[in-house]
């Protein structure tokens, strides 16, 4: 038994070193399936994180998934005198939002937070966003804690590769994304404009919405963080195309759950799937304009309430 123990320890040490070396080597070549090794992508998280340095004491901070960074057009709000930053990222779930808030809330110091919530995101495991975040955000304790909490091999491999990428190769600092990638344009302030419509008619089977307990817990943690700093917030759900929306059997249940957490806005505008939507769950330019025009008065009202309080 002693021999087994001794050899197991020795082998583990050798195996860990060899594994990490192979991971870095093959990761550089993009040959690892269970790790994200690329920084750049259409979500522009790398550019957005670097862009944060240009924004302080904003009026509004937008948080959420691609529904957030593809809907809340920072140019539109700035043109109405509202300074803002959109910190959304691809598939961002509340677990990752919490990490971003911990890291950037103080420097952005918003007066008001718009927290985009979506049923698909609340049931998401958060793996895709976790690896996106690890590759594009400077490493910190919260991200490390998230990595080991997921217990997912893809997240763990990416964490190791991200450490190598950031601290040994120093690539994060030097990475520069083009502001245009395929059909996506990064707009300073975090918004991403998608210029090509890819709407496809689909038949979604009717299904019940669910919420992962860990996402609900993380959402509450995010909101508590805002409450601790006396930052008012609003939960906003951006509408989906009719073909997807009609597949949700129990949307009222989801609404009740969100309303229990604070002010919640879900307004269904009379939009046409093929005209106003880029795909089933993202608005297209005409839909985005209508949505933001409709949302602006509500936001202005919230901001004027804050002014009055001050």
């Amino acid at each position, binding site marked *: *038994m002693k021999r087994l123990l001794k050899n197991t320890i020795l082998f583990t040490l050798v195996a860990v070193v060899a*594994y990490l070396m192979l991971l870095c080597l093959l990761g550089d070549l993009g040959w690892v399936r269970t790790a994200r090794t690329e920084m750049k992508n259409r979500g522009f998280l790398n550019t957005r994180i670097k862009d944060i340095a240009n924004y302080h004491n904003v009026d509004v901070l937008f948080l959420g998934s691609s529904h957030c960074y593809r809907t809340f057009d920072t140019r539109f709000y700035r043109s109405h005198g509202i300074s803002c930053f959109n910190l959304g990222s691809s598939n961002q779930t509340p677990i990752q939002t919490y990490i971003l808030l911990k890291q950037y809330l103080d420097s952005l110091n918003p007066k008001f937070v718009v927290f985009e919530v979506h049923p698909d995101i609340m049931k998401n495991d958060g793996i895709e966003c976790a690896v996106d975040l690890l590759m594009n955000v400077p490493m910190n304790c919260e991200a490390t804690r998230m990595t080991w909490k997921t217990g997912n091999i893809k997240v763990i491999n990416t964490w190791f590769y991200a450490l190598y990428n950031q601290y040994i190769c120093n690539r994060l600092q030097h990475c520069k994304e083009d502001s245009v990638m395929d059909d996506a344009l990064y707009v300073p302030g975090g918004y991403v404009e998608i210029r090509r419509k890819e709407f496809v008619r689909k038949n979604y089977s009717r299904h019940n919405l669910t919420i992962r307990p860990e996402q609900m817990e993380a959402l509450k943690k995010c909101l508590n963080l805002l409450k601790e700093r006396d930052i008012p917030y609003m939960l906003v759900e951006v509408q989906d195309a009719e073909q997807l929306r009609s597949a949700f059997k129990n949307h009222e249940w989801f609404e009740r759950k969100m309303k229990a957490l604070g002010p919640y806005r879900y307004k269904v505008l009379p939009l046409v799937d093929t005209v106003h939507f880029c795909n089933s769950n993202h608005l297209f330019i005409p839909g985005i304009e209508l949505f933001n025009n409709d949302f602006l008065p509500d936001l202005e009202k919230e901001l004027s309430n804050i002014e009055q309080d001050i």
Partner: protein
Amino acid sequence: MLFNSIEFLIFLPIVFCIYWLLHRHLRWQNAFVVAASYLFYGWWDWRFLLLIAFTTACSYASGLAISSSQFKVGKWELKPKFFLWTNIVVNLLILGLFKYYDFFAQSFADAFLGGNADKMLLHLVLPVGISFYTFQALSYSIDVYRGTIKPTRDVVAFFAYVSFFPQLVAGPIERATSLLPQFEQGRKFDYRTTVDGLRQMLWGFFKKMVVADSCAIYVDNIFDHPDWFNGASLLLAAVLFTIQIYGDFSGYSDIAIGCAKLFGIKLRRNFNVPYFSRDIAEFWRRWHISLTTWFRDYIYIPMGGSRVAKGRVALNTLVIFLVSGLWHGANWTFVVWGAFHALLFLPLILAGKNRKYRDVVAAGRALPSWRELGQMLLTFFLTVMGWILFRADSIEEAWKYYVHMFSTLFEDSPTLTSNMDAWVVLVSVTVMTVVEWVNRGEEHEFYLQPHSRLLRWAGYIALIFMIGAFMVTNEMPFIYFQF
């Protein structure tokens, strides 16, 4: 609990340590095996533990009753045969109720009631591994009746025999003659056996988590929508399913056998490089050996086996293959799959050529001859055709698959999902094939004992890295759990 889960990664070392701490107390060690096995099984659904306990208790009691020379109830003298058949009927009734009742009720309704079986169906959840542990328990009482084993009075050892967690949910289906004595005698820790067990487990994990699961991505996509793809894609999917089911099930068996070695228990080999077979008869001597030999010893031979008239031999063979097909699942596709293999097997057995290839292919040579290669490829192709039936949801779907595949076979090249998935499949299947070919005559396919430490460790690290870097991250249960 799944072998390929975090829970098992924590469970196994703890159980291993406690087990060997108890090595001086055999009864306690066996009791611990039972407790650990019940925890392992109960992780999935604790309610079905009662079913295992009931099956085990019935078989244990029947063993004692069969062996007692006189058993009287009033003026009735009950003979051993009565107890044997009672145990068989009770166990098969349970199996039939959970696994086959809805299938036969639906088939009856389809044939006579216009398909309306709503009121007749029970919709019972199929207990994981019920076919495996029921057969293992049954073999004990049959062996006691035949006198090939003495009934055990050690109830703890018997419970450990039926519920031993490495092979509880998907085999190998053990015999009391080989496994029960191991629980009745003390086990000694052996370093070499333990390391060999770990090695075999590692190979099993590689076959399951990299080879089988990677193939599954492509296979599921094609089999879900065969109409969307061309014939070459359908053929590729059928070939990949052939590899998937082997990687999945033999991978499970390797993990189970390797895991048992950690506890000083030797389980029987379940797969012996079946795709290197030169004819279908050889394939069936190398595929799911523990089930094939179970049917041979407990059904085929009692029916007369091959020592009867040729017509009867044909009937016996057909029955065995049909029953074997039905054992896999409550669907006509499995029955037809069994019949398909019976048709391939019958000419060989009737011509007396079913035992032609008993040795390993190309023994003593690095490569097979052209003739052997041709025979292996033909056998492989025939199994591929059979697996389409096995994988399809219904006979109608399988038929459509064959028709679409052959009618559009040469239209275009196969569609691939992504470059990364295609590379992973290509590399992992090549690694598996080469390693298994090299070790085809060994005790198991990742037998590295005679090589230097440097080579062995390099092999382990390469496999660990391939698992860590190329595994499919979605939790994919083993295919044979449903049987």
